[in-house]
């Protein structure tokens, strides 16, 4: 049996790898309180804020489905599709506290026919792709 592959994030520092309760990692401007995801760490993007200091903050792990769609065809590189390609849904989820919408693939083979705007979604981890050494993990959304 081949040794277990290492689970590594598909992108470094955007989310925690806590399998049971993963969280997206954003930043918050210390001057005006605005949230950023992916992280903003240099200059605040609020046009009336001169802030340059940010704290890293975990984002809400649940939110309301804003809209959704799917990929029926294999996206081009640099997407690393499995063979054969398995279609998957993509969700746009509204986080109440942060007042922002965050995209993510929908986990577990849940298709558009099982989704509707307004429903509660939660953040989970899932495999994005694998190579010989690693399993690359990504955040995904799953209906509650």
């Amino acid at each position: 049996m081949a040794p277990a592959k290492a689970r590594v994030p598909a992108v470094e520092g955007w989310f925690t790898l806590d399998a049971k309760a993963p969280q997206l990692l954003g930043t918050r401007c210390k001057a005006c309180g605005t949230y950023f995801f992916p992280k903003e760490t240099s200059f605040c993007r609020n046009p009336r804020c001169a802030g340059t200091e940010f704290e890293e903050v975990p984002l809400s792990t649940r939110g309301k489905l804003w809209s959704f769609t799917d990929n029926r065809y294999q996206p081009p590189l640099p997407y690393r599709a499995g063979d054969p390609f398995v279609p998957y849904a993509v969700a746009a989820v509204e986080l109440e506290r942060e007042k922002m919408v965050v995209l993510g693939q929908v986990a577990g083979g849940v298709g558009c026919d099982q989704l509707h705007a307004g429903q509660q979604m939660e953040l989970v981890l899932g495999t994005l792709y694998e190579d010989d050494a690693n399993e690359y993990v990504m955040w995904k959304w799953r209906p509650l």
Partner: protein
Amino acid sequence: MSKDVAVLGVGMHPWGKWGRNFVEYGVHAARAALADAGVAWTDVQFVAGGDTMRNGYPGYVAGASIAQALGWNGAQVASTYGACATGAQAIDVARARILAGLCDVALVVGADTTPKGFFAPVGGERKTDPDWQRFHLLGATNPIYFGLYARRRMEIYGASPRDFAQVKVKNSRHGFANPNARYKKLYTIEEVMESPIVSDPLRLLDICATSDGGAAVVLTSMEFARKRATKPVRVAAVSTVTPRYPNTVIEMPNFATDSAVGVQVPDVPFRDSIARAAYEQAGIGPEDVSLAEVYDLSTALELDWYENIGLCKPGDAEKLLRDGVTTLGGKQPVNASGGLGCFGEAIPAQAISQLCELTWQLRGQAGERQVAGASVGVAVNQGLFGHGSAVLAVV
């Protein structure tokens, strides 16, 4: 001081999948526009070229590439890029130079040669580029974003895939007799709804293709134009607005919207602000519009634009479509050219081709797709997440 410039000449290279060098389409369109204007290339004082990102270095200096192919004439030049708003930006640069009195005669030209299939990020592993990241981490193609907007219309306004198909049917009729259109086929609702789903709820025939093509306009000062034409079409306004923070609509190629914590959401959302800025510049309202050319990357997105440019209230676009208001013969036809549905996207040429169509319409030269008595035309689109693009033409 008048803020008008004249559109003295327009020209296009037909859209298709010709597979030749983009410069050739640009030169073809430029020569056609110069002939239409009755202006010699050697009399052009300024060239604004719309850049293409998919044709190597000549594409990044498109103004010079096309000027070189036309034969160096010593004109001043600019090459500009703003994704799908590239053409409007090139038009605006030329317009500003004319209004500033820096030149009288400008050629604006854009052309593209596109690869087949989904647009992919340009080559190389660029791990901090959001455009690379969205493909790598989400597989978020452009139709993914179009699909999100389309589904949102269905969920909040009760739009149906049948409405989306109706947009395609309408535009296929409009573009059927357009000599510059790529797709000249009359579609039925059933044919659209039987085409394969790409990104639910959008089907292959709901989504615009990528095309080769070229478009050019000759812009001049009103004084120059009056010596050559009795009633030239005028550009009365150009809008290249950016969003106001926070933009709470998810935009290509982003992973998330701005946060509305701490800053109040602006009264006018970005897409509504694009045409509005042009209306305000010209002192014209949406009720004055005789026809509109809008960026129908998807059929559903055309419906969004009806609301964004003020043809109706949010949620009423389907009714406007069903009532025939936006069909040729209706009160405010949209995409009389056939739109992207009949053309496909040739990015740097697209906004310029919209102005070509408005000009033919306002001159009464649009043949079978003529909008009767057209006097005010608006063209609108958006370059990715931050480039607004609207042009108002009047006669």
